[in-house]
């Protein structure tokens, strides 16, 4: 790593730019959370309140012994969430998103690791052709195929079911590419050794390849979960029944119906954002590896 000897002034200037940029970067998310816990009457005011009163006033009220006002403040802060859970199907949408994203992740990990194992370590006629057909389709942007994909899904009769969202996600080929790259680096001698020890093909896959591919699997798993959780356009097309909406699609209809209740909308947005923020902060290095593996080096 290269260390720059910068003057203190220069360094201060660098930090000034970075911190300003970080503030601009984070303000929208900050605004989601603060708006969601503002008192209903303090959401739409000028000037806007940067610190919700439940945070700025709760402690002083408690300390001055005004228990009643303090409780009322907390009550008001939760009002948007209460309305969200009472008047919308947010719990249902959250569950849908969770089940679909988890299934997509588990399915992708299984299917892609099997295919990647075969492409990376096995010899069979047509292997390279089959692989390059798969990888070649990665250059076609998904948005271009919306219409024919919808027609396929309609032919299969799964429109308006979770399958319509799940199956196309399970068919994405990025993971095969990523895991194959990863498995190529695993020495073939290990496979030979296992074969001599009497392991079958499935045993080799399950007991040798999978454990050795853990970092690759973790990266792919996290990327798949995130992209599935956040996907919007295809679920919007594939499902028109509110009982099968995913969270992003549900939020869209919520917005169409409550154009001006920003407290309510932001509490919904917060619920969609929180799982992603937690996952990102806990697994940062896998995100970074996923981006760099899938990117330039490929």
């Amino acid at each position: 790593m290269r260390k720059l000897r910068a003057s203190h002034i220069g360094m201060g200037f660098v930090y000034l730019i970075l911190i300003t940029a970080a503030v601009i970067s984070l303000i929208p998310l900050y605004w989601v959370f603060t708006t969601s816990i503002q008192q209903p009457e303090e959401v739409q005011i000028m000037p806007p309140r940067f610190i919700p009163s439940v945070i700025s006033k709760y402690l002083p009220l408690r300390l001055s012994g005004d228990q009643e006002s303090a409780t009322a403040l907390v009550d008001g802060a939760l009002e948007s969430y209460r309305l969200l859970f009472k008047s919308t199907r947010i719990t249902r949408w959250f569950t849908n998103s969770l089940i679909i994203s988890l299934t997509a992740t588990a399915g992708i990990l299984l299917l892609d690791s099997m295919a990647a194992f075969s492409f990376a370590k096995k010899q069979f006629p047509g292997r390279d052709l089959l692989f390059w057909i798969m990888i070649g389709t990665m250059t076609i942007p998904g948005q271009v195929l919306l219409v024919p994909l919808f027609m396929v899904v309609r032919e299969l009769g799964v429109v308006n079911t979770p399958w319509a969202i799940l199956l196309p996600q399970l068919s994405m080929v990025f993971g095969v590419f990523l895991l194959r790259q990863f498995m190529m680096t695993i020495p073939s001698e290990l496979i030979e050794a296992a074969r001599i020890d009497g392991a079958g093909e499935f045993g080799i896959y399950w007991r040798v390849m999978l454990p050795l591919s853990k970092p690759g699997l973790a990266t792919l798993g996290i990327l798949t979960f995130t992209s599935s959780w956040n996907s919007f356009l295809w679920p919007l097309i594939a499902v028109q029944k509110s009982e099968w909406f995913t969270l992003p699609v549900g939020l869209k209809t919520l917005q169409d119906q409550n154009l001006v209740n920003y407290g309510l909308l932001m509490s919904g947005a917060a619920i969609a954002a929180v799982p992603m923020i937690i996952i990102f902060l806990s697994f940062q290095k896998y995100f970074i590896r996923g981006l760099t593996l899938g990117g330039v080096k490929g």
Partner: protein
Amino acid sequence: MFKRIWKARSGYLFILPKYILFTIFVLIPIIWSVFVSFQEYRVFGTEWVGLLNFQDVFHDDLFWTAVGNTLRYAVIVMPSSVISALILASLINPLKRGAQTFFRASFYLPTVASSVVISMVWRWIFQTRFGLANYFLSLFGAEPINWLHSSAWAMRSVIIMAVLTPPGMGIILYLAAMASIPESLYEAATIDGANRFVQWWKITLPLLKPTTLYLMIVSTIGSFQVFDQVMLMTQGGPGYATTTIVHRIYNVAFRDFQFGYAGAMSMFLFVAIITLALIQSKVLSGDVEYKG
């Protein structure tokens, strides 16, 4: 031959489940997409209409409005995202590990938080009377702007949002590329008396070229597919002021159910994207080669 295939059967079995799904949901749609655009879909069956859909695309003012809006977006957002990623990564790179992690996370968080969430909150920020954007303007004594509901400002608002959302992926890729540049190059340059800016200009920048090219292509492709932001912030309006190509395709296909026509527009989009990507890689890919 058959004997060889039979001997290697486990190889096929392992790829079979994935390949079945891939064939149904990727290959068939790709092949189908060619046919769709030559057909017209009616309630009772379809009709082969040859190039009619493509002719219609070329005479459709709305489609060209969408192309214009998309171009306006791409022309600003693509360079701005690549340049800001380069600048931010260059500033982060010399910092200590802890500070690096902090800033990288700050810049990547909006990307993981989903475009739906980010678009929803920007719609609120751009609200005319109580939104943050107009409050910010008022601090400088500027008149409030009718951001999302005036045809003059709506597209600009979508672009401003995209420019102010940091290019998380670009920053991470640049940082990874910078970390793999051999230290010895900088040491040699220091001995030769090159200052830091000269080093950045003569060493870092040229060696980042593959990353820059990759980001330009990915960002162009992304800009040409912009949809979520428009759908959630303006619904393509007011009028058609913010209708983009994908938004147009979405409406024609899934609101008007003109699949053939939407298919033809998709083809146009695909050709445009591929052409741009090829031009960019032709123009930019030089002879930069180094082992990272």
